[in-house]
């Protein structure tokens, strides 16, 4: 079982991101379970959502306390909550930032973590460019596909087309694709941002 935890803020599409991730996994014939950490959601408040992916039925209903991967939609959360809590030792980390891990105070963490499992992606900028709104969730899914290899970009595109239609879907597909290419380029370069 592979477990992903997404941290963000109300309004950034955190819950939608895990739902789309689960749809992408379903499209690949896998079992997936997406669920939010339920609370009194408010715009800007910290939000957490979870996604489990497995090749067999998922029965477990506890929150994800030891994720295999973290997607951090808002780097300002680093100063507010312990987003890394429980992360497995070689877990994947994808952060929405136009800076490097070092620049946002994670130099020490990056130095001791498996470099090929870390990526920084300016997802808000990519969202603005293609969707016209500062929504980082879908670009991060494209980036996550590249970073983890867990799901294909084509599956993310299928999930986008299930959730959205028309111009919004087109913009999201373009955003996910650019994000995917950027993270792939980063990984080839061997550096995280």
């Amino acid at each position, binding site marked *: 079982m592979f477990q992903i*935890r997404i941290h963000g803020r109300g309004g950034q599409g955190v819950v939608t991101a*895990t*739902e789309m991730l*689960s*749809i992408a*996994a*379903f*499209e690949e014939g896998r*079992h*997936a*379970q*997406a*669920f*939010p*950490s*339920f609370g*009194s959601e408010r715009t800007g*408040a*910290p939000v*957490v959502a979870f996604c489990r992916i497995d090749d067999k039925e*998922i*029965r*477990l*209903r*506890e*929150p*994800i*306390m030891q994720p295999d991967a973290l997607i951090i939609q808002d780097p300002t959360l680093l100063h*507010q*909550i*312990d987003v890394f*809590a429980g992360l497995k030792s070689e877990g994947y980390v994808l952060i929405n930032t136009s800076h490097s891990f070092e620049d946002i105070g994670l130099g020490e963490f990056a130095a001791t973590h498996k470099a090929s499992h870390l990526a920084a992606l300016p997802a808000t900028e990519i969202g603005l460019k293609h969707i016209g709104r500062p929504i980082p969730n879908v670009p991060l899914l494209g980036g996550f596909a590249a970073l983890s290899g867990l799901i294909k970009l084509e599956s993310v595109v299928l999930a986008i087309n299930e959730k959205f239609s028309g111009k919004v879907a087109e913009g999201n597909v373009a955003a996910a694709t650019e994000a995917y290419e950027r993270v792939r380029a980063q990984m080839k370069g061997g550096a995280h941002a």
Partner: protein
Amino acid sequence: MLKQTEGSHAVAEAVALCRPEVICAYPISPQTHIVEALGEMVKSGELPNCEFINVESEFAAMSVAIGSSAAGARTYTATASQGLLFMVEAVYNASGLGLPIVMTVANRAIGAPINIWNDHSDSLSQRDSGWMQLFAETNQEAVDLHIQAFRLAEELSMPIMVCMDGFILTHAFERIDIPEQSQVDAYLPAFEPRQMLDPAEPVSIGAMVGPEAFMEVRYLAHAKQMQALELIPQYAAEFKQVFGRDSGGLVRPYQIEDAETVIIAMGSVLGTIKDVVDEMRAEGHKIGVLGIISYRPFPLQAVRAALANCKRFLVLEKSLAVGMGGILATDIRMAVTGSGLKGFTAIAGLGGRPIPKASLHPLFRRAEQEDLPPVTFVDLDEAAVNKQLERERLNRRSGPIAENILHDKGVVSAKFG
């Protein structure tokens, strides 16, 4: 058709496949997505011959449901928590009048303190209301139980609650097989009311009944639930014939044949429990699970039979009879009266507290050793409790308990669960 979808939306699709004629509901979390989706289906014409009635409260929702069911319409509503409590007088009337309304309860805690998260306090508070109550373990089962519920309710002319864990199921995206319309039509016959307000054949429904007949009317409600004990397994078997999968029934045993210790629970926590039991089985523990699907009617005989070969049981329940202990556990103990079985109760998950495997492993091991008090509160923060008790010893005006505990615990926004 297999879909990756939200539990609430899947339930809405299942209800629509049952061709309801009246849907009336008032929004309350975590039930809202279900009736929102149904409202959209009615408006778009996807669900034809159905009236969606916006009402001003849950009391009105159940009152409208009573009226429409009495008029012979297949009627559906949904609620949760305070919403269920607000409609209680009408809830009892619906069952007392024998009206086959189907209602989803997206289980949620009851305040105060106000809390929107999942536990089973709401529908269990209506234990004796005369409604049948079926508990879904998964979203697939929630879908399937709604289809069975319409058939059961209408056959018996008694209302039924389909209970599904709020948020944990209602808001989870999962792989769910949505039945075909032709399958549902083959399984669920058209509604033939036993009683109906019909201008062509006028009757009254809701007579005042004095001591000369009240007991007989109430006894018949009980007798109908006893009939349901026969019909529920039968309808589950027929469901399997049409839809090809096991869903519903009275109880669901798992790894129970040679189990010395049996864990008993209702709802979605059974999934986590089964994972723990598999892990313990791999280490040689003789442990099994008994899921209770039908809470009302309560299957005393089926529970007794399922526990016949074990040595001890632990009831893990998301509810608390304040001043007593377990609610489900009381019924389980009734089922095994005289058997000499050792039984323990664990209260867990109140107000949405996660029930992680890490807490269940030591709990189940202690149950195996019979090293538990009669009632255990799983993951209770005893330091927080003792601090408040100490505060109350020291000060007469110790203040509001909820505010004190929150203050002691500090900001909890950093918690993920």
